[in-house]
């Protein structure tokens, strides 16, 4: 009984810390750069994401959230997967922009593998071409509030083989 209590307190603490301190890393897997500029605008002092504890990190080893922009080109696919694999658990992916959602205007091109969810398990989708900083912040906050529910369906888990890319085509 008391061990259960201790465990639930520790679990609660972990969730609280995770929700309040998401460090993000940003990866462009083939975007036209429009979305990236919006992401950079999002982390400027005007929007001040540090008040949510959000910090942009350079190293995948420090990050909790991978923010992806653009469709996945076949050339960037391997790198995207590698960056994702370098992040320590627990980790989440946010797809930002119409192209990251479905391939957008690049859909069907010979060199494009599709949206981010063709390669990685995505936890939150932020539509727009490009989405405004407010929309990106909203996406991150929605993802964080979904963490507070007991077992979010979208949470990826390495042991379930969720990181296995759906798309199996040949890289160019």
């Amino acid at each position, binding site marked *: 009984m008391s061990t259960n209590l201790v465990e639930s307190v520790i679990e609660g603490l972990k969730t609280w810390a995770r929700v*309040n*301190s998401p460090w993000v890393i940003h990866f462009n897997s083939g975007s036209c750069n429009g979305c990236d500029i919006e992401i950079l605008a999002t982390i400027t002092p005007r929007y*001040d994401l*540090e*008040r949510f504890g959000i910090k942009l990190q*350079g*190293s995948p080893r420090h990050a*909790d959230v991978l923010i992806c922009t653009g469709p996945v080109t076949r050339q960037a696919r391997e790198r995207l997967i590698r960056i994702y694999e370098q992040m320590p658990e627990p980790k989440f992916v946010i797809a930002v922009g119409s192209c990251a959602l479905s391939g957008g205007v690049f859909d069907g091109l010979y060199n494009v593998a599709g949206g981010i969810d063709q390669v990685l398990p995505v936890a939150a989708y932020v539509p727009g071409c490009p989405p405004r900083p407010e929309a990106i912040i909203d996406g991150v906050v929605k993802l964080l509030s979904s963490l507070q529910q007991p077992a979010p369906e979208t949470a990826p888990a390495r042991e379930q083989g969720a990181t296995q890319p759906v798309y199996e085509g040949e890289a160019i």
Partner: protein
Amino acid sequence: MELGPVARVWHQGVPEMNPIVALLIFPGGLFVLTLGLAYEWVDRKLLARAQNRVGPRWFQPLADVFKLLAKEEVIPNDVNPLLFVGLPIAALAGALTAALYVPIFGLAPAYSFEGDLIVTVYLLSLLTLCMGLAGANTLNRFALVGATRTLTQLFSYEAPFMLALLAPAFVAQTWQISAINSYASTHWLIVTQPIGFLVALIGLMGKLELPPFDAPEAETEIVAGAMTEYSGRGLALFRLGKGVEMVVGLTLVAAFYLGGIGGPLDFLLKTGALLIAIVIIQALMTRLRIEQTVGLWWRWGALLVLVQLLLYILWEVVTA
């Protein structure tokens, strides 16, 4: 030392405390860790205000540390796993041990002996040394560049910083931190040794790798410097160590130059004032390249402190 009645009771209260409690919970251990997190928050919040931002919430450093502790720790290929796991522990242990020799929160130091100043200065360097080794232990090129810069910077600010802390020791004619502290409570050394104070304060910023001395962890060039490969627990311990080092460093500078630390209020006011000064310098300056940092310390820092020492010796000779 001349103490008020409250401060006297406060000072005598410590030896009666259970040594385990003193070591792990109140003046040492947990208390210093909490203080380190609080000072980190003040630093980040004030910096955010200086940049016209709202800044982090008060529990932000705590949430960061908890989250990192709960994360997976990835041990990369081709590192020495023992060193990879052990170095963060050694770094934090060094910083926490250094906290036992300084008047934290205005209390008398838990341990004190003739020469503890030297021990403390070396214990403070242990953290930087561990960070450098941790970066050099991995094969990551960013971590290697970061490690080189960390160690280069260590060798540039260390001598001036040490000289700046030795100058008060010369005047007080003792190598004991508590004795210098009580000497300083009657002599505001910032008035007689302004150069030493400046060098000590800016040397502390170099030690903590705060801007403008953040070339070793320049995130726009070398990702996260020596810390690039660390995730989870190791990173959390290094961050905690940095916080503790900040508290210990501020306490040392305040005790030596700002008229000693006689009680808790004294401690909060004086270290707080120093912290604000550090934040202002951080907000005003941009990052120096590593060779600019080295040049600054050896051409100006070390030289100025030596000149000040020379002046002091001349003064002694003339007045003798």
